[in-house]
Protein backbone atom coordinates (compact mmCIF):
# COMPACT_ATOMS: atom_id res chain seq x y z
CA UNK A 1 0.00 0.00 0.00
CA UNK A 2 2.71 2.43 0.97
CA UNK A 3 4.30 2.37 -2.45
CA UNK A 4 1.22 4.08 -3.87
CA UNK A 5 1.62 7.15 -1.70
CA UNK A 6 3.17 9.45 -4.35
CA UNK A 7 0.39 8.69 -6.82
CA UNK A 8 -2.21 9.19 -4.09
CA UNK A 9 -0.65 12.50 -3.16
CA UNK A 10 -0.99 13.62 -6.77
CA UNK A 11 -4.49 12.35 -7.37
CA UNK A 12 -6.07 14.04 -4.34
CA UNK A 13 -5.73 17.62 -5.65
CA UNK A 14 -6.30 16.54 -9.26
CA UNK A 15 -9.57 14.76 -8.53
CA UNK A 16 -10.68 17.59 -6.26
CA UNK A 17 -9.86 20.08 -9.02
CA UNK A 18 -11.87 18.13 -11.57
CA UNK A 19 -14.88 17.71 -9.33
CA UNK A 20 -14.75 21.32 -8.10
CA UNK A 21 -16.57 22.92 -11.09
CA UNK A 22 -19.17 20.14 -11.10
CA UNK A 23 -20.04 20.67 -7.45
CA UNK A 24 -19.20 24.35 -7.23
CA UNK A 25 -21.42 25.70 -9.97
CA UNK A 26 -24.44 24.29 -8.18
CA UNK A 27 -23.45 24.82 -4.55
CA UNK A 28 -21.02 27.68 -4.38
CA UNK A 29 -20.68 27.37 -0.62
CA UNK A 30 -19.19 23.91 -0.88
CA UNK A 31 -16.07 25.02 -2.78
CA UNK A 32 -14.11 26.25 0.18
CA UNK A 33 -14.74 23.26 2.50
CA UNK A 34 -13.94 20.94 -0.40
CA UNK A 35 -10.66 22.66 -1.18
CA UNK A 36 -9.68 22.77 2.48
CA UNK A 37 -10.54 19.10 2.90
CA UNK A 38 -8.45 18.21 -0.15
CA UNK A 39 -5.46 20.17 1.12
CA UNK A 40 -5.81 18.65 4.60
CA UNK A 41 -5.95 15.17 3.10
CA UNK A 42 -2.86 16.04 1.07
CA UNK A 43 -1.01 17.27 4.16
CA UNK A 44 -1.80 14.08 6.06
CA UNK A 45 -0.70 11.95 3.11
CA UNK A 46 2.49 13.99 2.74
CA UNK A 47 3.37 13.54 6.40
CA UNK A 48 2.61 9.81 6.21
CA UNK A 49 4.75 9.44 3.11
CA UNK A 50 7.59 11.35 4.80
CA UNK A 51 7.45 8.98 7.76
CA UNK A 52 7.36 5.96 5.46
CA UNK A 53 10.30 7.27 3.43
CA UNK A 54 12.34 8.01 6.55
CA UNK A 55 11.65 4.56 7.97
CA UNK A 56 11.93 2.31 4.95
CA UNK A 57 13.82 4.23 2.30
CA UNK A 58 12.74 5.93 -0.89
CA UNK A 59 9.60 4.98 -2.78
CA UNK A 60 9.94 4.43 -6.51
CA UNK A 61 6.58 4.33 -8.22
CA UNK A 62 6.28 3.15 -11.80
CA UNK A 63 3.04 4.04 -13.48
CA UNK A 64 0.99 1.28 -15.04
CA UNK A 65 3.45 -1.31 -13.80
CA UNK A 66 5.95 -0.59 -16.58
CA UNK A 67 9.50 -0.95 -15.34
CA UNK A 68 11.38 2.39 -15.10
CA UNK A 69 13.55 2.87 -18.19
CA UNK A 70 10.50 2.29 -20.40
CA UNK A 71 7.70 3.37 -18.10
CA UNK A 72 7.19 6.61 -16.23
CA UNK A 73 8.77 6.68 -12.82
CA UNK A 74 8.15 8.86 -9.78
CA UNK A 75 10.74 9.08 -7.04
CA UNK A 76 9.78 9.96 -3.49
CA UNK A 77 13.10 10.24 -1.68
CA UNK A 78 13.88 12.24 1.45
CA UNK A 79 14.26 15.50 -0.42
CA UNK A 80 10.99 15.17 -2.35
CA UNK A 81 9.06 14.11 0.76
CA UNK A 82 10.35 16.99 2.90
CA UNK A 83 9.58 19.38 0.05
CA UNK A 84 6.09 17.91 -0.29
CA UNK A 85 5.35 18.46 3.41
CA UNK A 86 6.50 22.06 3.07
CA UNK A 87 4.33 22.56 -0.03
CA UNK A 88 1.25 21.14 1.71
CA UNK A 89 1.80 23.27 4.82
CA UNK A 90 2.22 26.46 2.81
CA UNK A 91 -0.70 25.62 0.55
CA UNK A 92 -3.08 25.02 3.45
CA UNK A 93 -2.02 28.26 5.13
CA UNK A 94 -2.40 30.22 1.89
CA UNK A 95 -5.82 28.70 1.31
CA UNK A 96 -7.01 29.65 4.82
CA UNK A 97 -5.56 33.12 4.35
CA UNK A 98 -6.89 33.55 0.83
CA UNK A 99 -10.47 32.78 1.74
CA UNK A 100 -10.63 34.52 5.09
CA UNK A 101 -8.79 37.76 4.56
CA UNK A 102 -8.78 39.25 1.13
CA UNK A 103 -12.00 39.54 -0.81
CA UNK A 104 -12.16 36.94 -3.52
CA UNK A 105 -13.53 37.97 -6.86
CA UNK A 106 -17.26 37.46 -6.77
CA UNK A 107 -19.48 35.20 -8.82
CA UNK A 108 -18.33 32.07 -10.61
CA UNK A 109 -14.73 33.16 -10.10
CA UNK A 110 -14.74 31.56 -6.64
CA UNK A 111 -15.13 28.16 -8.23
CA UNK A 112 -12.35 28.99 -10.67
CA UNK A 113 -10.06 30.18 -7.90
CA UNK A 114 -10.26 26.95 -5.95
CA UNK A 115 -10.04 24.80 -9.08
CA UNK A 116 -6.91 26.59 -10.24
CA UNK A 117 -5.27 26.43 -6.81
CA UNK A 118 -5.82 22.68 -6.70
CA UNK A 119 -4.55 22.26 -10.26
CA UNK A 120 -1.48 24.28 -9.32
CA UNK A 121 -0.92 21.98 -6.35
CA UNK A 122 -1.18 18.85 -8.48
CA UNK A 123 1.30 20.35 -10.94
CA UNK A 124 3.72 21.14 -8.11
CA UNK A 125 3.37 17.61 -6.73
CA UNK A 126 4.11 16.11 -10.13
CA UNK A 127 7.13 18.34 -10.68
CA UNK A 128 8.56 17.44 -7.28
CA UNK A 129 8.16 13.69 -7.72
CA UNK A 130 8.86 13.35 -11.46
CA UNK A 131 11.69 10.94 -12.14
CA UNK A 132 12.16 11.71 -15.80
CA UNK A 133 12.96 14.85 -17.70
CA UNK A 134 9.86 14.99 -19.87
CA UNK A 135 7.47 14.73 -16.93
CA UNK A 136 9.19 17.69 -15.34
CA UNK A 137 8.38 19.66 -18.51
CA UNK A 138 4.73 18.66 -18.50
CA UNK A 139 4.15 19.41 -14.82
CA UNK A 140 5.99 22.71 -14.95
CA UNK A 141 3.68 23.68 -17.80
CA UNK A 142 0.66 22.72 -15.69
CA UNK A 143 2.05 25.00 -12.98
CA UNK A 144 2.66 27.82 -15.46
CA UNK A 145 -0.81 27.66 -16.96
CA UNK A 146 -2.57 27.70 -13.60
CA UNK A 147 -0.34 30.52 -12.36
CA UNK A 148 -1.08 32.61 -15.46
CA UNK A 149 -4.80 32.09 -14.98
CA UNK A 150 -4.56 32.87 -11.25
CA UNK A 151 -2.62 36.08 -11.87
CA UNK A 152 -5.01 37.09 -14.64
CA UNK A 153 -7.99 36.62 -12.31
CA UNK A 154 -7.28 40.00 -10.76
CA UNK A 155 -8.29 41.62 -14.06
CA UNK A 156 -7.06 45.01 -15.26
CA UNK A 157 -3.31 45.43 -15.26
CA UNK A 158 -2.75 41.91 -14.03
CA UNK A 159 -4.06 40.57 -17.35
CA UNK A 160 -1.17 42.14 -19.26
CA UNK A 161 1.43 40.81 -16.85
CA UNK A 162 -0.18 37.38 -16.78
CA UNK A 163 0.07 37.30 -20.56
CA UNK A 164 3.71 38.38 -20.43
CA UNK A 165 4.43 35.68 -17.87
CA UNK A 166 2.70 33.06 -19.97
CA UNK A 167 4.67 33.95 -23.11
CA UNK A 168 8.01 34.05 -21.29
CA UNK A 169 7.41 30.91 -19.27
CA UNK A 170 6.24 28.99 -22.33
CA UNK A 171 9.33 30.08 -24.23
CA UNK A 172 11.32 28.89 -21.21
CA UNK A 173 9.53 25.56 -21.28
CA UNK A 174 10.31 25.26 -24.98
CA UNK A 175 14.00 25.89 -24.33
CA UNK A 176 13.86 23.24 -21.65
CA UNK A 177 12.15 20.83 -24.03
CA UNK A 178 14.87 21.48 -26.58
CA UNK A 179 17.45 20.60 -23.95
CA UNK A 180 15.55 17.41 -23.17
CA UNK A 181 15.49 16.60 -26.88
CA UNK A 182 19.27 17.00 -27.07
CA UNK A 183 19.65 14.69 -24.09
CA UNK A 184 17.38 12.14 -25.67
CA UNK A 185 19.25 12.33 -28.97
CA UNK A 186 22.56 11.76 -27.18
CA UNK A 187 21.56 9.05 -24.72
CA UNK A 188 18.28 7.51 -25.88
CA UNK A 189 16.65 7.75 -22.48
CA UNK A 190 14.76 10.28 -20.39
CA UNK A 191 14.68 8.52 -17.02
CA UNK A 192 16.92 10.30 -14.53
CA UNK A 193 18.35 7.16 -12.94
CA UNK A 194 19.03 5.75 -16.40
CA UNK A 195 20.60 9.01 -17.55
CA UNK A 196 22.89 8.99 -14.54
CA UNK A 197 24.48 5.83 -15.91
CA UNK A 198 24.86 7.03 -19.47
CA UNK A 199 25.59 10.75 -19.29
CA UNK A 200 28.93 10.75 -17.41
CA UNK A 201 30.62 9.01 -20.33
CA UNK A 202 29.19 11.59 -22.72
CA UNK A 203 30.04 14.74 -20.79
CA UNK A 204 32.33 15.99 -23.56
CA UNK A 205 29.59 15.60 -26.17
CA UNK A 206 28.30 18.86 -27.57
CA UNK A 207 24.73 17.59 -27.49
CA UNK A 208 24.85 17.00 -23.74
CA UNK A 209 26.55 20.31 -22.95
CA UNK A 210 24.19 22.17 -25.27
CA UNK A 211 21.23 20.38 -23.76
CA UNK A 212 22.33 21.33 -20.25
CA UNK A 213 22.69 24.97 -21.22
CA UNK A 214 19.27 25.04 -22.91
CA UNK A 215 17.71 23.44 -19.84
CA UNK A 216 19.39 25.97 -17.59
CA UNK A 217 18.09 28.88 -19.66
CA UNK A 218 14.60 27.41 -19.79
CA UNK A 219 14.39 26.65 -16.09
CA UNK A 220 16.14 29.98 -15.41
CA UNK A 221 13.14 31.79 -16.87
CA UNK A 222 10.80 29.70 -14.73
CA UNK A 223 12.80 30.23 -11.54
CA UNK A 224 13.25 33.96 -12.29
CA UNK A 225 17.02 33.86 -12.35
CA UNK A 226 18.46 37.35 -12.42
CA UNK A 227 18.63 38.49 -16.07
CA UNK A 228 15.53 36.41 -16.86
CA UNK A 229 13.41 37.62 -13.94
CA UNK A 230 11.53 40.34 -15.83
CA UNK A 231 8.11 38.74 -15.47
CA UNK A 232 8.22 38.13 -11.73
CA UNK A 233 7.87 41.49 -9.94
CA UNK A 234 4.95 42.65 -12.10
CA UNK A 235 3.14 39.33 -12.02
CA UNK A 236 3.45 39.01 -8.24
CA UNK A 237 2.63 42.56 -7.33
CA UNK A 238 -0.51 42.69 -9.48
CA UNK A 239 -1.69 39.17 -8.64
CA UNK A 240 -4.72 38.98 -6.32
CA UNK A 241 -3.64 39.21 -2.68
CA UNK A 242 -5.21 35.83 -2.07
CA UNK A 243 -2.81 34.06 -4.41
CA UNK A 244 0.47 35.98 -4.27
CA UNK A 245 1.77 34.16 -1.14
CA UNK A 246 1.25 30.82 -2.85
CA UNK A 247 2.89 31.92 -6.10
CA UNK A 248 5.88 33.64 -4.55
CA UNK A 249 6.68 30.79 -2.23
CA UNK A 250 6.31 27.75 -4.44
CA UNK A 251 6.34 28.35 -8.19
CA UNK A 252 9.93 29.48 -8.68
CA UNK A 253 11.25 27.07 -6.06
CA UNK A 254 9.90 24.00 -7.81
CA UNK A 255 11.71 24.94 -11.03
CA UNK A 256 14.89 25.36 -9.00
CA UNK A 257 14.37 21.98 -7.36
CA UNK A 258 13.92 20.42 -10.80
CA UNK A 259 17.20 21.99 -11.93
CA UNK A 260 19.06 20.66 -8.88
CA UNK A 261 17.62 17.22 -9.56
CA UNK A 262 18.69 17.26 -13.18
CA UNK A 263 22.15 18.50 -12.30
CA UNK A 264 22.91 15.99 -9.59
CA UNK A 265 20.53 13.08 -10.05
CA UNK A 266 20.48 12.89 -13.84
CA UNK A 267 23.83 14.26 -14.97
CA UNK A 268 26.54 14.50 -12.40
CA UNK A 269 27.21 11.40 -10.46
CA UNK A 270 30.34 11.98 -8.46
CA UNK A 271 32.80 14.56 -9.56
CA UNK A 272 32.48 14.22 -13.31
CA UNK A 273 30.45 17.39 -13.30
CA UNK A 274 33.63 19.30 -12.51
CA UNK A 275 34.93 18.64 -16.01
CA UNK A 276 32.17 20.72 -17.52
CA UNK A 277 31.89 24.36 -16.65
CA UNK A 278 28.19 24.11 -15.85
CA UNK A 279 28.63 24.32 -12.06
CA UNK A 280 30.63 27.50 -12.45
CA UNK A 281 27.90 28.93 -14.68
CA UNK A 282 25.34 28.04 -12.01
CA UNK A 283 27.09 29.65 -9.07
CA UNK A 284 28.27 32.72 -10.96
CA UNK A 285 24.76 33.47 -12.20
CA UNK A 286 23.51 32.75 -8.68
CA UNK A 287 25.99 35.19 -7.16
CA UNK A 288 25.01 37.84 -9.69
CA UNK A 289 21.32 37.29 -8.99
CA UNK A 290 21.74 37.39 -5.21
CA UNK A 291 23.56 40.73 -5.24
CA UNK A 292 21.72 42.52 -8.05
CA UNK A 293 18.31 41.23 -6.88
CA UNK A 294 18.89 42.58 -3.38
CA UNK A 295 20.13 45.86 -4.83
CA UNK A 296 17.02 46.18 -6.99
CA UNK A 297 14.88 45.49 -3.93
CA UNK A 298 16.56 48.45 -2.29
CA UNK A 299 15.44 50.76 -5.10
CA UNK A 300 11.74 49.81 -5.14
CA UNK A 301 8.86 51.85 -3.74
CA UNK A 302 6.02 49.33 -3.83
CA UNK A 303 6.10 47.02 -0.80
CA UNK A 304 5.07 43.90 -2.70
CA UNK A 305 7.76 44.62 -5.32
CA UNK A 306 10.44 44.91 -2.62
CA UNK A 307 9.53 41.44 -1.41
CA UNK A 308 9.38 40.11 -4.96
CA UNK A 309 12.92 41.32 -5.66
CA UNK A 310 13.98 39.86 -2.33
CA UNK A 311 12.74 36.53 -3.66
CA UNK A 312 14.82 37.01 -6.83
CA UNK A 313 17.93 37.55 -4.72
CA UNK A 314 17.22 34.47 -2.62
CA UNK A 315 16.93 32.30 -5.73
CA UNK A 316 20.49 33.42 -6.42
CA UNK A 317 21.61 32.43 -2.92
CA UNK A 318 20.17 28.95 -3.37
CA UNK A 319 21.90 28.60 -6.73
CA UNK A 320 25.24 29.51 -5.10
CA UNK A 321 24.76 26.52 -2.80
CA UNK A 322 23.73 24.27 -5.69
CA UNK A 323 26.74 25.30 -7.74
CA UNK A 324 29.37 24.37 -5.17
CA UNK A 325 29.27 20.70 -6.10
CA UNK A 326 29.64 19.33 -2.57
CA UNK A 327 27.23 17.69 -0.16
CA UNK A 328 27.05 20.55 2.30
CA UNK A 329 26.25 22.99 -0.47
CA UNK A 330 23.47 20.93 -1.99
CA UNK A 331 21.89 20.03 1.36
CA UNK A 332 22.20 23.62 2.57
CA UNK A 333 20.72 24.96 -0.65
CA UNK A 334 17.77 22.60 -0.45
CA UNK A 335 17.25 23.51 3.21
CA UNK A 336 17.38 27.19 2.30
CA UNK A 337 14.89 26.54 -0.49
CA UNK A 338 12.32 25.25 1.99
CA UNK A 339 13.09 28.17 4.31
CA UNK A 340 12.72 30.64 1.52
CA UNK A 341 9.36 29.19 0.55
CA UNK A 342 8.08 29.75 4.10
CA UNK A 343 9.65 33.22 4.32
CA UNK A 344 8.17 34.40 1.04
CA UNK A 345 4.75 33.11 2.07
CA UNK A 346 5.02 35.02 5.36
CA UNK A 347 6.15 38.22 3.65
CA UNK A 348 3.29 38.19 1.19
CA UNK A 349 0.71 37.20 3.81
CA UNK A 350 1.79 40.13 6.00
CA UNK A 351 1.96 42.47 3.00
CA UNK A 352 -1.49 41.35 1.89
CA UNK A 353 -2.89 41.96 5.38
CA UNK A 354 -1.26 45.41 5.52
CA UNK A 355 -2.68 46.30 2.10
CA UNK A 356 -6.09 44.99 2.90
CA UNK A 357 -6.49 46.49 6.37
CA UNK A 358 -4.40 49.64 6.36
CA UNK A 359 -4.17 50.45 2.66
CA UNK A 360 -0.38 50.22 2.69
CA UNK A 361 0.92 49.94 -0.85
CA UNK A 362 4.11 51.93 -1.15
CA UNK A 363 6.95 52.81 1.19
CA UNK A 364 5.34 56.17 1.99
CA UNK A 365 2.24 54.43 3.33
CA UNK A 366 4.21 52.28 5.75
CA UNK A 367 4.01 55.00 8.38
CA UNK A 368 0.34 54.16 8.72
CA UNK A 369 1.30 50.96 10.49
CA UNK A 370 2.89 52.99 13.28
CA UNK A 371 0.75 52.77 16.37
CA UNK A 372 -2.02 51.01 14.48
CA UNK A 373 -0.73 47.63 13.48
CA UNK A 374 -1.33 44.98 16.11
CA UNK A 375 1.67 43.51 17.89
CA UNK A 376 1.54 40.21 16.03
CA UNK A 377 1.84 41.87 12.65
CA UNK A 378 4.91 43.82 13.71
CA UNK A 379 6.28 40.71 15.39
CA UNK A 380 5.80 38.67 12.25
CA UNK A 381 7.59 41.29 10.20
CA UNK A 382 10.49 41.21 12.70
CA UNK A 383 10.74 37.40 12.65
CA UNK A 384 10.65 37.19 8.87
CA UNK A 385 13.13 40.05 8.53
CA UNK A 386 15.48 38.23 10.91
CA UNK A 387 15.18 35.12 8.81
CA UNK A 388 15.65 36.96 5.51
CA UNK A 389 18.77 38.67 6.84
CA UNK A 390 19.98 35.52 8.56
CA UNK A 391 19.98 36.00 12.32
CA UNK A 392 19.78 32.91 14.53
CA UNK A 393 17.65 31.12 15.69
CA UNK A 394 15.61 31.51 12.49
CA UNK A 395 15.88 29.07 9.60
CA UNK A 396 17.41 31.63 7.26
CA UNK A 397 20.59 31.77 9.33
CA UNK A 398 21.24 28.05 9.16
CA UNK A 399 20.59 27.90 5.43
CA UNK A 400 23.06 30.69 4.78
CA UNK A 401 25.48 29.08 7.20
CA UNK A 402 25.57 25.83 5.24
CA UNK A 403 25.87 27.65 1.92
CA UNK A 404 28.80 29.76 3.17
CA UNK A 405 30.38 26.67 4.73
CA UNK A 406 30.25 24.79 1.44
CA UNK A 407 31.68 27.75 -0.47
CA UNK A 408 34.54 27.96 2.04
CA UNK A 409 35.08 24.23 1.74
CA UNK A 410 35.55 24.47 -2.00
CA UNK A 411 37.71 27.56 -1.56
CA UNK A 412 35.26 29.74 -3.40
CA UNK A 413 35.74 33.09 -1.71
CA UNK A 414 33.96 35.07 -4.40
CA UNK A 415 30.76 33.15 -3.64
CA UNK A 416 31.21 33.80 0.09
CA UNK A 417 31.59 37.48 -0.68
CA UNK A 418 28.41 37.47 -2.79
CA UNK A 419 26.41 35.85 0.04
CA UNK A 420 27.76 38.43 2.51
CA UNK A 421 27.05 41.35 0.19
CA UNK A 422 23.52 40.20 -0.51
CA UNK A 423 22.98 39.76 3.24
CA UNK A 424 24.09 43.35 3.84
CA UNK A 425 21.81 44.61 1.07
CA UNK A 426 18.92 42.60 2.54
CA UNK A 427 19.61 44.22 5.89
CA UNK A 428 19.60 47.59 4.13
CA UNK A 429 16.20 47.19 2.51
CA UNK A 430 14.64 45.90 5.69
CA UNK A 431 16.13 48.80 7.63
CA UNK A 432 14.64 51.14 5.07
CA UNK A 433 11.27 49.49 5.67
CA UNK A 434 11.60 49.72 9.44
CA UNK A 435 12.61 53.35 9.36
CA UNK A 436 9.44 54.09 7.42
CA UNK A 437 7.29 52.11 9.84
CA UNK A 438 8.67 53.71 12.98
CA UNK A 439 9.02 57.25 11.71
CA UNK A 440 5.38 57.34 10.72
CA UNK A 441 3.27 59.98 12.41
CA UNK A 442 1.76 58.60 15.58
CA UNK A 443 -1.97 58.73 15.10
CA UNK A 444 -4.16 59.92 17.86
CA UNK A 445 -6.32 57.11 19.25
CA UNK A 446 -9.49 58.97 18.36
CA UNK A 447 -8.77 59.06 14.64
CA UNK A 448 -7.91 55.36 14.53
CA UNK A 449 -10.81 53.27 13.55
CA UNK A 450 -10.10 49.96 15.13
CA UNK A 451 -9.67 47.34 12.40
CA UNK A 452 -10.27 43.94 13.87
CA UNK A 453 -8.15 41.33 12.16
CA UNK A 454 -9.90 38.06 11.41
CA UNK A 455 -8.91 35.20 13.64
CA UNK A 456 -7.85 33.13 10.62
CA UNK A 457 -5.28 35.75 9.67
CA UNK A 458 -3.68 35.58 13.10
CA UNK A 459 -3.55 31.80 12.87
CA UNK A 460 -1.86 32.00 9.44
CA UNK A 461 0.74 34.55 10.50
CA UNK A 462 1.38 32.76 13.78
CA UNK A 463 1.85 29.37 12.15
CA UNK A 464 4.19 30.78 9.53
CA UNK A 465 6.34 32.60 12.09
CA UNK A 466 6.48 29.54 14.31
CA UNK A 467 7.53 27.40 11.36
CA UNK A 468 10.31 29.86 10.49
CA UNK A 469 11.68 29.50 14.03
CA UNK A 470 10.99 25.75 14.09
CA UNK A 471 12.92 25.35 10.84
CA UNK A 472 15.84 27.05 12.55
CA UNK A 473 15.63 24.95 15.68
CA UNK A 474 15.19 21.68 13.78
CA UNK A 475 17.68 22.59 11.08
CA UNK A 476 20.07 19.87 12.13
CA UNK A 477 17.36 17.21 11.80
CA UNK A 478 16.17 18.38 8.38
CA UNK A 479 19.65 18.83 6.98
CA UNK A 480 20.52 15.33 8.11
CA UNK A 481 17.52 13.93 6.22
CA UNK A 482 18.61 15.88 3.14
CA UNK A 483 22.19 14.69 3.53
CA UNK A 484 20.98 11.09 3.70
CA UNK A 485 19.26 11.62 0.37
CA UNK A 486 22.30 13.24 -1.17
CA UNK A 487 25.03 10.94 0.13
CA UNK A 488 24.38 8.10 -2.37
CA UNK A 489 25.20 10.54 -5.16
CA UNK A 490 28.84 10.23 -4.16
CA UNK A 491 29.69 13.91 -4.33
Amino acid at each position, binding site marked *: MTQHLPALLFSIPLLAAISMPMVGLRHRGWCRPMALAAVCAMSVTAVVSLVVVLNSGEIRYSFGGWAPPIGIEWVADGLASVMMVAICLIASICLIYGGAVSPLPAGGRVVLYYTLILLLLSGLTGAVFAGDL*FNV*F*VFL*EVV*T*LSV*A*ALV*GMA*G*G*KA*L*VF*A*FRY*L*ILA*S*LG*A*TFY*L*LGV*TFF*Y*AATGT*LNMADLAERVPALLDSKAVIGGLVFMFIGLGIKMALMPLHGWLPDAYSYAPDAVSPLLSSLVTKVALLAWARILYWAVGVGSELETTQILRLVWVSGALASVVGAFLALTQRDVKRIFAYGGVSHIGLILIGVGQGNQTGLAGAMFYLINDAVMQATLFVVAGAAIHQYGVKTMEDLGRLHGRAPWWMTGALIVVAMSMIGIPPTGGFFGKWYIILSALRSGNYLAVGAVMLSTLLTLAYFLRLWVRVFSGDQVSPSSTQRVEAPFALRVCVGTLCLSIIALGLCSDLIVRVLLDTITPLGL
Partner: protein
Amino acid sequence: MFEFIRATLQRPNYIAFVVLFLWGLYIAITHHNLVKKLIGMYLVQTSVFFFLVSFSVKQGATVPILMSTTDKVHAEAYANPLPHALTLTGIVVQVATLGVALALVTAIYQKYDSLDEDEILKRLE
Protein backbone atom coordinates in the same frame (compact mmCIF):
# COMPACT_ATOMS: atom_id res chain seq x y z
CA MET B 1 34.97 24.94 -42.91
CA PHE B 2 34.01 23.28 -46.18
CA GLU B 3 33.57 19.98 -44.38
CA PHE B 4 31.32 21.62 -41.84
CA ILE B 5 29.13 23.22 -44.51
CA ARG B 6 28.83 19.94 -46.37
CA ALA B 7 27.92 18.07 -43.20
CA THR B 8 25.31 20.68 -42.40
CA LEU B 9 23.80 20.62 -45.87
CA GLN B 10 23.31 16.89 -45.58
CA ARG B 11 20.87 17.50 -42.75
CA PRO B 12 18.38 19.98 -44.16
CA ASN B 13 15.93 19.14 -41.37
CA TYR B 14 18.30 20.65 -38.81
CA ILE B 15 18.65 23.79 -40.90
CA ALA B 16 14.87 24.03 -41.13
CA PHE B 17 14.63 23.61 -37.36
CA VAL B 18 17.16 26.35 -36.65
CA VAL B 19 15.50 28.74 -39.11
CA LEU B 20 12.03 28.12 -37.67
CA PHE B 21 13.23 28.38 -34.08
CA LEU B 22 15.07 31.67 -34.58
CA TRP B 23 12.29 33.06 -36.73
CA GLY B 24 9.72 32.34 -34.02
CA LEU B 25 11.96 33.78 -31.33
CA TYR B 26 12.49 36.91 -33.44
CA ILE B 27 8.74 37.37 -33.92
CA ALA B 28 8.01 36.80 -30.23
CA ILE B 29 10.64 39.33 -29.16
CA THR B 30 10.28 42.12 -31.70
CA HIS B 31 6.58 42.35 -32.53
CA HIS B 32 4.39 44.60 -30.43
CA ASN B 33 1.12 42.93 -31.35
CA LEU B 34 0.15 40.41 -28.70
CA VAL B 35 -1.32 37.93 -31.16
CA LYS B 36 1.85 38.07 -33.24
CA LYS B 37 3.89 37.38 -30.12
CA LEU B 38 1.69 34.35 -29.62
CA ILE B 39 2.34 33.23 -33.19
CA GLY B 40 6.07 33.56 -32.57
CA MET B 41 5.82 31.41 -29.45
CA TYR B 42 3.77 28.87 -31.37
CA LEU B 43 6.42 28.74 -34.10
CA VAL B 44 9.21 28.16 -31.57
CA GLN B 45 7.30 25.32 -29.95
CA THR B 46 6.42 23.75 -33.28
CA SER B 47 10.03 23.93 -34.44
CA VAL B 48 11.14 21.92 -31.40
CA PHE B 49 8.47 19.29 -32.13
CA PHE B 50 9.64 19.20 -35.74
CA PHE B 51 13.19 18.63 -34.55
CA LEU B 52 12.04 15.88 -32.20
CA VAL B 53 10.17 14.06 -34.95
CA SER B 54 12.74 14.62 -37.67
CA PHE B 55 15.68 13.06 -35.87
CA SER B 56 13.68 9.97 -35.08
CA VAL B 57 13.10 9.18 -38.76
CA LYS B 58 14.65 5.94 -39.90
CA GLN B 59 14.84 4.91 -43.52
CA GLY B 60 12.95 1.77 -44.40
CA ALA B 61 11.53 1.39 -40.92
CA THR B 62 7.92 0.64 -40.18
CA VAL B 63 5.46 1.22 -37.35
CA PRO B 64 6.55 -0.49 -34.14
CA ILE B 65 3.85 -3.14 -33.96
CA LEU B 66 4.89 -6.77 -33.68
CA MET B 67 2.91 -8.87 -36.15
CA SER B 68 3.89 -12.15 -34.56
CA THR B 69 5.09 -13.08 -31.13
CA THR B 70 7.17 -16.03 -32.22
CA ASP B 71 9.46 -14.45 -34.86
CA LYS B 72 12.73 -12.90 -33.82
CA VAL B 73 12.44 -9.14 -33.27
CA HIS B 74 14.58 -6.96 -35.53
CA ALA B 75 14.80 -3.63 -33.75
CA GLU B 76 16.28 -1.89 -36.80
CA ALA B 77 13.12 -2.61 -38.79
CA TYR B 78 10.96 -0.44 -36.56
CA ALA B 79 10.80 3.29 -36.03
CA ASN B 80 11.32 4.62 -32.52
CA PRO B 81 7.85 5.52 -31.21
CA LEU B 82 8.98 7.52 -28.18
CA PRO B 83 9.71 10.87 -29.90
CA HIS B 84 6.27 10.72 -31.47
CA ALA B 85 4.69 10.07 -28.09
CA LEU B 86 6.64 13.00 -26.65
CA THR B 87 5.54 15.21 -29.55
CA LEU B 88 1.93 14.24 -29.03
CA THR B 89 2.12 15.18 -25.35
CA GLY B 90 3.96 18.35 -26.28
CA ILE B 91 1.23 19.32 -28.73
CA VAL B 92 -1.37 18.86 -26.02
CA VAL B 93 0.62 21.18 -23.75
CA GLN B 94 0.98 23.64 -26.63
CA VAL B 95 -2.76 23.68 -27.30
CA ALA B 96 -3.47 24.28 -23.61
CA THR B 97 -0.95 27.13 -23.51
CA LEU B 98 -2.43 28.65 -26.63
CA GLY B 99 -5.94 28.40 -25.20
CA VAL B 100 -5.04 30.18 -21.96
CA ALA B 101 -3.01 32.79 -23.84
CA LEU B 102 -5.85 33.53 -26.28
CA ALA B 103 -8.29 33.84 -23.38
CA LEU B 104 -5.95 36.37 -21.77
CA VAL B 105 -5.58 38.26 -25.07
CA THR B 106 -9.35 38.43 -25.44
CA ALA B 107 -9.71 39.77 -21.91
CA ILE B 108 -6.98 42.33 -22.55
CA TYR B 109 -8.64 43.42 -25.79
CA GLN B 110 -12.00 43.85 -24.10
CA LYS B 111 -10.42 45.87 -21.32
CA TYR B 112 -8.00 48.10 -23.25
CA ASP B 113 -9.50 47.99 -26.73
CA SER B 114 -6.13 47.37 -28.32
CA LEU B 115 -3.72 44.57 -29.09
CA ASP B 116 -0.63 46.74 -29.40
CA GLU B 117 1.67 46.35 -26.42
CA ASP B 118 2.88 49.98 -26.41
CA GLU B 119 -0.68 51.22 -26.58
CA ILE B 120 -1.72 48.99 -23.70
CA LEU B 121 1.24 49.96 -21.56
CA LYS B 122 0.41 53.63 -22.23
CA ARG B 123 -3.14 53.05 -21.01
CA LEU B 124 -1.94 51.20 -17.93
CA GLU B 125 -0.53 54.39 -16.44
